[in-house]
Every structure is written in structure tokens, then in C-alpha cells.
């Protein structure tokens, strides 16, 4: 199994979620996050005093999938989240040793 993690622009969440559902993904975990890459932060001005805000709001989407789906899921996310402008985010994949469904104790792919 693989854990696919995507950091995307917050307003792209709905499109990514719909694309994943259309592909057949049954669940996901979403959290608010913040950070920066090449986009860097932005500046804000309060009563003439300029502040640099380093961390830009992002959404983190995590999906665990079977090995054979990993490549396609990454493609689905990238396609849905892309605007072509700086700050679109990142998607990465890491191997997962095991997964347990808390309610039943099922393990592995059946727990997905």
C-alpha cells in the first residue's frame, strides 16, 4: 500500500475530492496546513507597518491506496489541483506497512 499526500490550494479541495471520488477512492483525511515553497510568503500592511507573512494557508489531503493505484491517484490529484500558477502545491507517495480498521480489526487492503 501507499500513502499519497497532497498539499494543495484551499479552494481546489472540492475539485480534488470530486475527482478522487470519481476515480473510486472511498475515503480521505483532510487538514488545514500552512507553509511555503517557491511561492514564498506575502506582505501585509497595518497602519503603515509592513509585515511579511511567511506561511501561506494550504490544505493537506491524505489518501491510502493499493500499490497499483498510486500512480493514477497522483495523476488524478495533480490534474484536479493544477492552476498553472505558482503555489499549486506538491504531491508525494510513501510506502505504508500496514493499515487496521479500528471498528472491525480488519487489516491490509481490506481495511481501505
Amino acid at each position, binding site marked *: 500500500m501507499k500513502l499519497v499526500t497532497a498539499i494543495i490550494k484551499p479552494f481546489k479541495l472540492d475539485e480534488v475530492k470530486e475527482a478522487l471520488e470519481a476515480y473510486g477512492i472511498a475515503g480521505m483525511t483532510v487538514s488545514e496546513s500552512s507553509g511555503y515553497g517557491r511561492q514564498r510568503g506575502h506582505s*501585509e*500592511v*497595518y*497602519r*503603515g*507597518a509592513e*509585515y511579511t*507573512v511567511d506561511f501561506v494557508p494550504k490544505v493537506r489531503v491524505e489518501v491510502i491506496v493499493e500499490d497499483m493505484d498510486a500512480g493514477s491517484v497522483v495523476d488524478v490529484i495533480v490534474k484536479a489541483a493544477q492552476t498553472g500558477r505558482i503555489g499549486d502545491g506538491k504531491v508525494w507517495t510513501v510506502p505504508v506497512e500496514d493499515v487496521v480498521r479500528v471498528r472491525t480489526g480488519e487489516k491490509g487492503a481490506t481495511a481501505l
Partner: protein
Amino acid sequence: MTTLSTLATADTPFTDSGNTAWVLAAAALVLFMTPGLAFFYGGMVRTKSVLNMMMMSFISMGTVGTVWVLWGYSEAFGPDLGDKGLLGNPFKEFGLHGVLSAIYGYTPASGGTPAAGGIPGSAFVAFQVVFAIIAVALISGAIADRAKFTTWTVFTVLWATLVYFPAAHWVFAFSGYAAKTGGWIANGGGFLHGHGAYDFAGGTAIHINAGAAGLALALVLGKRIGFGKDPMRPHNLTLVMLGAGILWFGWFGFNAGSALAAGTQAAGVWVNTLAATCTAMLGWLIVEKLRDGHFTSLGAASGVVAGLVAITPACATVTPIGALIVGLAAGSICAFAVGLKFKLGFDDSLDVVGVHLVGGLVGTLLIGLLASVNSPTGLAGLKMQEGLFYGGGFLQLGVQAAAAFTVMIFSFVVTYIIGFALEKTMGFRLHEDDEDAGIDSAEHAETGYDLGNLFSGRMGAHGSLQDARHHDEEEVKA
């Protein structure tokens, strides 16, 4: 029954019901400004100090309201000590003794026949206390995030007693109104040589006074940890805008209520108060757009307050065009003045100096240029001249400056002494660990917001209520 009806008939010829109703309503409007100020200031600090910031305003309602009833009113408006115009006798009308049955607004000298339009003494008491409360609360913005709350509470009592009540006596106590002899600034005493400096609703007594006091306390307490380095962004600008809106609303009571009657003067003042605030907002925003590139919501809210501050002394003595000029000047000058603290290196956290001291000076001094017979008062019965722009010469400008700078220096010096004494005895500055962790949890054992999923409601009740009860029991046993 007979007593009641006798009282009622005795009352009727003396008090004017319209005037009384307006002054009481205006007093309530002005009281509402203090919670408005709490929002205005509270939104500007960081999340970890919003409650403390709001509590600094709220506590002054509790303390100043109490001392007002006890000795404050008597000190500000009671019979003058030695007829010098410096201070009312704090003991003569202690506990409002004899004030509730008094009627103000007519001259007993006119053969004992009262003129129309009087209001009950208690209405005047109500109207003036809310000024005292907000004057004290205004100072708190200069020392955000870092003042021990107990010490601040003691400070509110000391400052009201030693600084505000005397200044209010100088500026607001007209001879023959509440007492035979009033304050020296209002009545042209002292070195003013018979020329009254005019401060209709409190540019000197409140805004210059609170601004100078804020500067003194900011110097006594020192800078916040990380001042000039860490981002100290306002955490909730919607609260700031709500607060500015409440302040504007309440300010109509502040200024138009200061006519102490419901008539042409109050209405004219109302219009001037609106006019100046409009141009002040525009002035501040134009400066920001040209200098920083954006129209900010904080700029709009700040411009509103700067305009209100500046028109406060001037609202009764300038024309509506004059009011537009006062506002434009105040909005644009204050937009620059708020940057001074970074250049001069003092941490006036929420710009009490840049907005209230500077705005108060702008309004008070502009009277010397713009005072006109076509104003709401028409300058009738006032010991003052038309402004420089209307051919009145430099005299009124000089008188206004003398009053403004006297109040400013008096306030700065006495406040510095009070603050310094409190720092050396009780300690005024919060411990730096508490400041880092946040003054809300350190001083009030509360946090302002419970918005996150993890620690709110049913998801995060980590055994707390039982622990809290247990804690109480332990304390009782001890």
C-alpha cells in the same frame, strides 16, 4: 402620596423634559463607546491577549463609576476649592450629596427665576461619568499585552482621581452651571487672562490627556518582547471595524450630548461630527493608498476614530465646511503620526499617541484657525474670538495652544509619576514568561476563542470540570 405630587409639581417648571431625555440618552450612547473601544482595541492585539485588552476597558467602567459616585463628581464639578479654578472640593458633594435634587442649566443670578431648559443635576452626573470612564479606558491601548491587571485596576482609580477629575474641572466646569466657580481653562482664568480656550466635548480633557498618559505609561512599562521584530498583526479586524462603528455611533452622544440640551446647537454639532469623520476616513485611506498601495480596513477604522477625536473639541465652533477640513487634516496627519513610534522607539502598542494625542491637538488647535460665528454655538456668550482664517488674529490660536499644552504636560508628568510609583511598589510590567505565554491565560485564566476542533466542546474535555471542582475544595480546606 402628597409628598410625591408635591415633588412632581415642584419639578415641572424647572426641568425641560426634552433636554433631560436627550442628555440621558446621550449618556447611555457614550457609555456604549467603552465596550466599543474594547472591541476596537481587542481586535488589534494578538489572539493571546484579546481578553486582557477588552478587560482593561471594562474594568474602568467598574472602578471609575464607583469613585465617580463617591468623590469623583464632587472633585470635577463640586464647589471650587479656593475659587482658583483648579479643583472641585472632593468632600462637599461626596456620594453625590445634594446633587440629585439640584437642577442645572439656569442662572440663579437672574433674579431667582430659572430660565427654560434646565436638566436634573443627576442627568449631568450621568453624562459626565461616562466621559471619565472612556478617558481612562483609552490609555490602555498604549500598554497592550504587558500590564499586570491588578496594577492597572489600581491605576484607573489613581489616574481618574489625580489626572482626569482635575482636568475635567479645568475644561468642563463652567462657572455658574453646576457650581458658582468653574475651571480655569473653560472660564479664561489663570494666564489665559479672560480668554476662554474652547473644548466643546473633550479634545484636551479626554484625548490629549489620555494620549499623553498613554505615552507616559508606554515609557514606564517599556516595549513588548519582540517589538519591531516579531509580527504583531491585529488578530481580528472584523472586531476592530465593529468597534469603530460603535464608537462612531456613541460619539454622537459624546458631542451632540455635550450641548446639554436638545436644540439647534446639538443638531449642528451632530452634523459637524458626521462631516469630520467622513473626511477623516477618506484622508487616512488616501494616504495609505498613495504610500502603501492599498485601502486597508484598519486604515478606514482608524481614520474614523481620528476624525471623531479631532472634531470633539471643535464640533460646536466650526462651520460644516470647517468640520470637513478638521476631519481631512486629522485623518491624513494621524495616518503619518502612527509611524512615529517606530522611528522614536517607544511601544505605544495601539497608537494612543498617534491617534488621540495627535488628533486631539489637531482639533484643539484648528479651533484657533477655523472658529466661526456661523458655527453651532455662533460663539455666542463664549469668551473667545473668531479663528485666524476668519480674521480673528492669532489670539484664539494662542489660547487654544496654551490650554492643550498645559493639559498635555500636566498629564504626562503626573501619569509618569503614578506609573513609576506603581512599578516600584506593586510592579506594573508583567513577567516576561507570562507575556510570552499570553496575558489572557496568565492574568485571567481564560482564552478568548474556542474555535479549533481538537480542544473544544465534547472532543477535548480532558477531565477538566472535575479537576476544577477538586481545585476549589482544596482551596477551601487550605
